């Protein structure tokens, strides 16, 4: 099966903890993304990454960082979570032409 796979599906953690979410795509795409979706379903891009370029949305706090081992994997690390980080984090990938962006099912983060 070719798709975008995210783990975990859910994560509950306390303020100040570090968390890491995994993402793998088997579509052979060269570009991967992380989006944040808030409770109102607003989708905001956080990072875009391929083997040549990392683009960071300037509104993303520094405690967020992408980590990639190869073009099929793009993990998301949050150093010290805060309550406003509670959201669904969606990993996605596309080819260079962006004719279609494929999304994973998302990781729902709850910060208590």
């Amino acid at each position, binding site marked *: 099966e070719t798709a*975008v796979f995210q783990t975990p599906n859910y994560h509950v953690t306390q303020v100040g903890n570090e968390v890491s979410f995994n993402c793998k795509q088997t579509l052979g795409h060269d*570009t991967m*993304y992380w*989006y944040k979706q808030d409770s*109102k*379903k*607003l*989708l905001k*891009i956080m990072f*875009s*990454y*391929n083997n040549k*370029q990392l*683009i960071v949305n300037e509104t993303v706090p520094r405690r967020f960082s992408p980590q990639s081992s190869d073009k099929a994997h793009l993990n998301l690390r949050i150093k010290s979570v805060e309550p406003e980080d509670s959201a669904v984090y*969606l990993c*996605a990938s*596309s080819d*260079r*032409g*962006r*004719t*279609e*962006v494929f*999304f*994973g*099912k*998302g990781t729902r983060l709850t910060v208590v």
Partner: protein
Amino acid sequence: SQLAEENSWALSVHEGESVTVNCSYKTSITALQWYRQKSGKGPAQLILIRSNEREKRNGRLRATLDTSSQSSSLSITATRCEDTAVYFCATDGDNYAQGLTFGLGTRVSVFP
């Protein structure tokens, strides 16, 4: 930067009826895409319509694009309960690595 916006927050229809979601955007585009997100899933593409196209169909779905007014619409005919979802329009940026910019989303509810 581009901003895609849907014009209605939520729409409700009964099965068999038609529904139209509208979208406006702010700058020039090469293509506009429509996505649907069902509960617990990531967004999935429905239609891509290029800037030189005025209309595109995919089964019960019909997308239009008016570049002069910078607007697009997605119509669903003969709606079914499984069409219940959040619908997004999305536009591309100049840099392929930037990913897509998604609109605010319109929640469509189809009732029996």
